[in-house]
């Protein structure tokens, strides 16, 4: 009996080792989104482009790994990572305490503020009372959902699957305001034809507990990939690759302090 057990155990160990060895040689799969311009968007031919996409590719080059970009809708981002559909998320994900319960994060790779947008000249007061019954649209499963549900619990909160749908309904008049990343809002909406007549409302939101401490790459808990990616982020920061990508999309340095 004992011998059988030992044999089985060693066979299992060997199998695990082989599988582990194979895994490291496998392609690195990165989860990305495709409806969050200029961070990620889908071209007419179905290919992906944007800041996140370029960063993902640069990190792969730095790690000298074969990479595969896996497209995933936003609200399934973390579940799909946990279900091993890919190995890391490069999709403008803010580093928050809530998410840290589920995944590990690398250091930030950019940090930009979050703000509300409404019709130009709209007079909404951004307080609990001022937003009672106000229709606020936002992307499901984001830091903004945490923020709005916490600070404006009486608002009529509408959750969307993609940021593009939020803008569509803001234009259609189904929403009084929406909230998201300022850079995404400027390039993805305010500077487009669709966004004419809309403007930021109030200042940058402030709540680290909900909004997090910058945008990082999410990795499964305990994965050694975190350290590798951190080194890679530092390397592309140092050798100018990051700056080149940054300047391709933005007039300012979005890395933050």
């Amino acid at each position, binding site marked *: 009996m004992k011998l059988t057990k030992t044999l089985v155990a060693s066979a299992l160990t060997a199998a695990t080792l082989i599988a582990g060895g194979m895994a490291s040689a496998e392609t690195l799969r990165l989860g990305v989104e495709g409806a969050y311009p200029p961070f990620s968007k889908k071209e007419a031919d179905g290919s992906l482009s944007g800041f996140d996409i370029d960063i993902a590719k640069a990190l792969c080059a730095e790690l000298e790994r074969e990479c595969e970009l896996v497209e995933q809708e936003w609200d399934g981002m973390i*579940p799909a990572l*946990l279900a091993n559909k890919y190995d890391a998320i490069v999709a403008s994900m803010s580093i928050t305490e809530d998410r840290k319960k589920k995944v590990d994060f690398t250091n930030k790779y950019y940090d930009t503020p979050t703000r509300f947008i409404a019709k130009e000249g709209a007079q909404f007061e951004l307080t609990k009372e001022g937003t009672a019954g106000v229709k606020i649209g936002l992307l499901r*499963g984001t830091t903004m959902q945490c923020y709005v549900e916490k600070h404006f619990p009486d608002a009529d909160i509408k*959750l*969307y699957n993609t940021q593009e749908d939020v803008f569509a309904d803001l234009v259609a008049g*189904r929403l009084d305001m929406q909230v998201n990343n300022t850079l995404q809002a400027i390039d993805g909406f305010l500077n487009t034809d669709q966004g004419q007549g809309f403007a930021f409302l109030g200042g940058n939101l402030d709540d680290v507990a909900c909004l997090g401490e910058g945008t990082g790459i999410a990795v499964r808990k305990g994965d050694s990939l975190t350290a590798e990616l951190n080194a890679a982020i530092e390397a592309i920061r140092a050798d100018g690759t990051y700056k080149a990508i940054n300047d391709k999309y933005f007039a300012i340095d979005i890395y933050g302090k």
Partner: protein
Amino acid sequence: MEAERTFWEYLRDFSENQAPLDFVLVYDNLDKFFEGALVTLQLTFLALLIGGLMAIPMALARANKVSVLNPIIWCYTYAFRGTPLLVQTYLFYFGLGQFEAVRESFLWSPILSDPWWCVLIAFTLNTAAYTTEFLRGAIETTPRGEIEASVAAGMSPWLRTRLVVLPSAFRRALPAYSNEVIFTLHGSVIASTVTLQDLLGVGRWLNGRYYLAYEGFVTAMLFYMAIVLMITVAFKLAEKRYLKHLRPRESTEETAASATV
């Protein structure tokens, strides 16, 4: 330290960190799921009710080949049965909202700007199309003898339709209709794609809020299964009552007993 924790705290910790499914979190949000179930049931049954009422005259027009109406209704049922419900819903919700004229019309602010109405309209038109077609089939297969008998009894066409054709057709359509009810319930998840907090919407909200993989889905699934079970039982009872004449005799002893009397 361990001993100082109350049972509830222990359960919460176990549920959050060790259990495959965070059942305490689900329990905490159960009220939201009941609200979601209410939205789902409302949309499903209102759509079925209105769609069902619309289907009766359309099915009669189709079965009796009423000259102008028949091809028009055929086009309508073909369009709504030939395209996915999701596309129809998007068309009413996102599609119509694109047009300035629609947004400025009197229909916009009470009806078309509201996702609830958009979804109800799409669901109703969809289920009406399906119901029309199988009700037409049921009407067309009315046994000739029933019609002949009612003609012989001197019934007017309207009276014949009301007292003989429709009740007979409803009976034959009953088993098929239970499928339609369940399909409409399943189709109602589309409401969650246009911001409504129906059952699936609540499940996705829970997943999104707490970054979960499946707790919201599993809970919503259990609710759907419970609703389907109730629908199935209701139809079984209805079939037992209205299709009694089609069932085999229950017991031979009874028959034998009554024969000897």
